[in-house]
């Protein structure tokens, strides 16, 4: 510990400066850090891994000194000597870990401590060359993802939207290596505005890099990952249900290893699966919520329960989640929506939303006479699937492409849209093109109704479609007409970039009504519902 004292001073000074200029938030984290350091001190004295931890300290030092060095330029204020704020005792390993761990003030202290301990143990044991069986927290639950050490100011940046940050990539590679999951590489030239997102090619699925049979990943999950990356399973409800079914399979085949607790071990087993699925295709908000629910349910399993009972309990939980949040919610939403559909209505729908299709089919069965206009867009052309389903029922439909939407809107009486997620500030995240339709509908004074189950409500906040999105395979935009394939050699042209966005974000001013299973609410009341749900749980 003695030799680390010299290098510790500048580190702590930088951190205190940072703390002062960032206000009160960090002082609490500093206190946590101090407490942690004290505990760590005690642990180090008790255990015999002192040397090992010092080694890891030294390794971490170059990484963590990078961090504070980049801080001073961004913080021109206060270069004073450390104030009455207690100078932290020589900062051991937690120096870097604190920056990482301290960036999640939202989590409860107990959770933070447990994570920190787990991470410390993992890093210590991996540095010693043991096989780490405790992975880092899953990157997919966005509030949990640790940002890179270079950006402690930005507290909640998830990994998947920092594709142009080499440090994050390095960390991700290390983590995937530890979990024995292949890293998927980006494909093609990315448009500069979106260079922070990953762009994968469908021709190179992750499963090609896996050995068959895979020892680390359950075959149901491998199959699911392939279905996601090839677009066989698409649509947020379908993906969530497929995920939950795959997890059911995993739980059924799971056996607790000796001397391990089911509640902790199963969660750790799920982490590499989730990383794998994330590599195949970034998780959606609904999937994120489902995973959070499952992890919570698993953690509630007491060690008293026998394995068989615990497994049946979990399987029932998953079944009831699917049934309550998806199936019954759809029935409730259909009931409310049918009140809004009147005789002789002309309803405009966009793309293929399973919920909206269900509502229209139910309304038709009730005997209401209405006409549907299906709007479609390249390259996915999902509207054709919706058209097929509606026509099969016998509903009279019209099909247009999105470029004709301003032509057809004067005839429309209502617009029904599905949603991928509803954000906490009232913005609606949905398939790209939705915000365009909402904008034009607003200009024509046509009411826009969004139908969304509450399990898709997300605590994230977003005001634009750039920050967090998904880039699909750019080769999808290549089209062959009359024997000629334009854009075939797009990679040869240096100044050409193909952008295939998947989602966009619609502001609440364009949406008149959101129909959920709790009732009809205005777009601005989403945080109220989130609050009521949290109270219920």
């Amino acid at each position, binding site marked *: 510990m003695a030799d680390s004292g010299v290098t510790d001073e500048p580190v702590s000074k930088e951190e205190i400066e940072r703390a002062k200029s960032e206000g009160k938030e960090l002082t609490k984290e500093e206190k946590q850090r101090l407490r942690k350091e004290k505990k760590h001190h005690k642990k180090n004295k008790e255990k015999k891994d002192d040397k090992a931890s010092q080694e890891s300290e030294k390794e971490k030092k170059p990484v963590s000194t990078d961090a504070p060095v980049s801080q001073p330029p961004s913080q021109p204020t206060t270069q004073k000597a450390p104030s009455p704020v207690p100078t932290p005792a020589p900062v051991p390993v937690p120096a870097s870990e604190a920056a990482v761990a301290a960036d999640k003030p939202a989590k409860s202290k107990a959770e933070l401590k447990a994570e920190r301990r787990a991470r410390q143990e993992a890093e210590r044991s991996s540095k010693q060359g043991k096989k780490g069986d405790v992975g880092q927290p899953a990157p997919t639950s966005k509030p949990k993802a640790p940002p890179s050490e270079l950006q402690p100011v930005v507290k909640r940046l998830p990994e998947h939207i920092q594709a142009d940050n080499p440090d994050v990539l390095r960390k991700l590679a290390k983590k995937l290596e530890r979990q024995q999951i292949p890293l998927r590489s980006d494909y093609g030239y990315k448009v500069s505005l979106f260079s922070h997102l990953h762009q994968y090619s469908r021709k190179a699925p992750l499963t090609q890099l896996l050995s068959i049979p895979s020892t680390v990943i359950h075959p149901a999950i491998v199959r699911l990952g392939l279905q996601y990356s090839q677009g066989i399973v698409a649509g947020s409800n379908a993906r969530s249900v497929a995920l939950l079914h795959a997890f059911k399979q995993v739980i059924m085949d799971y056996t607790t290893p000796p001397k391990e607790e089911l509640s902790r071990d199963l969660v750790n087993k799920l982490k590499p699966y989730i990383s794998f699925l994330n590599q195949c295709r970034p998780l959606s908000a609904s999937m994120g919520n489902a995973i959070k629910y499952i992890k919570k349910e698993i953690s509630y399993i007491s060690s008293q329960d026998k394995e068989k009972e615990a497994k049946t309990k979990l399987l029932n939980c998953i079944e009831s989640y699917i049934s309550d949040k998806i199936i019954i919610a759809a029935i409730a939403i259909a009931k409310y929506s049918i009140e809004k559909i009147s005789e002789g209505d002309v309803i405009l729908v966009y793309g293929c939303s399973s919920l909206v299709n269900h509502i229209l089919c139910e309304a038709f069965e009730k005997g209401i006479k209405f006409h549907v206009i299906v709007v479609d867009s390249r390259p996915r052309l999902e509207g054709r699937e919706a058209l097929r389903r509606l026509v099969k029922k016998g509903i009279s439909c019209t099909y247009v492409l999105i470029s004709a939407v301003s032509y057809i809107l004067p005839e429309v009486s209502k617009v029904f849209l599905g949603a991928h997620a509803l954000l906490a500030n009232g913005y609606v995240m949905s398939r790209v093109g939705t915000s365009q339709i909402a904008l034009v509908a607003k200009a024509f004074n046509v009411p826009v*109704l969004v139908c969304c189950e509450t399990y898709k409500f997300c605590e994230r906040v977003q005001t634009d479609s750039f920050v967090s999105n998904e880039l699909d395979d750019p080769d999808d935009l290549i089209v062959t007409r009359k024997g000629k394939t334009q854009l075939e050699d797009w990679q040869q042209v240096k100044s050409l970039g193909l952008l295939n966005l998947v989602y966009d974000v619609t502001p609440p001013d364009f949406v008149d009504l959101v129909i959920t299973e709790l009732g009809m609410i*205005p777009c601005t*009341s989403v945080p109220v519902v989130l609050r009521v749900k949290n109270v219920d749980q």
Partner: protein
Amino acid sequence: MMDEEELVEYFRAQLREDPDIASAVAAIRTLLEFLKRDKGETILGLRESLKWATACLTGVDSSVAVSSGGELFLRFITLTSLEHQDLSRCKKMMEERGELFLEKISMSRSKVAKLCHTFIKDGAKILTHSYSRVVLRVLEKAAAEKKRFSVYVTESQPDSAGRQMAEALRKLNVPVTVVLDAAVGYVLEKVDLVIIGAEGVVESGGIINKIGTYQMALCSKTHNKPFYVVAESFKFVRLYPLNQQDVPDKFKYKADTLKTVQNLSEEHPIIDYTPPSLITLLFTDLGVLTPSAVSDELIKLYL
């Protein structure tokens, strides 16, 4: 046990005795009386008969406030129904809660007036629409605070209720001018703020009020004049109209019209719907709310 005639007679008597109370308050008093005289044996039966009584009352006065008041009353008293096993004790609890509810809402108009009168500055010119007792109360309070202001009232056809409002204001010594409904756009440039009452406040934060309100709201939005709505909380109703057509017919026409006339398309509706984007603030006994906060309050009241 009150039958339909007695119910209606009691309701009308309430309205006659005190012409100043809101029709919803009279309806709730009637429902309370009905509850006291009810001889039912089960809680479920009680709920059903109360619902039936509310339906009867909406048959007399079709305003949104009566139906919303009735529903809120039902919610308020049935929150206790699961606590006691004994029916008579339960009924006593319900009656007490009913009295409490009535007391609370009788105070609501003065609470609203207290909140709103501070927004009327000295020398202000106010525009209002038709006859609203809440707006009258607000202006009374402002006058009592020794503020000087003048009022423009629209005539509000087809029943010329605006003239009644003008009379009442003259009694308070407030300078008042009656204008034609068609002159709203003309007069708005002289006006500083617009205050109107509401018959019902809907889930989106919009309001349902006498026909001509939507027009006034559109004009004030264009002129950038603040558009204030004063309403008591029992007028909050679980409707969500998307546009004018979406408002149910039972609110659009007077009760007698609904019963007698065959072809409603020949009748002119007496209310319209004003969307929340045109409203600046709502003054209620729950506080001063923005239109988006109305849904929040409704969720608290109803869920």
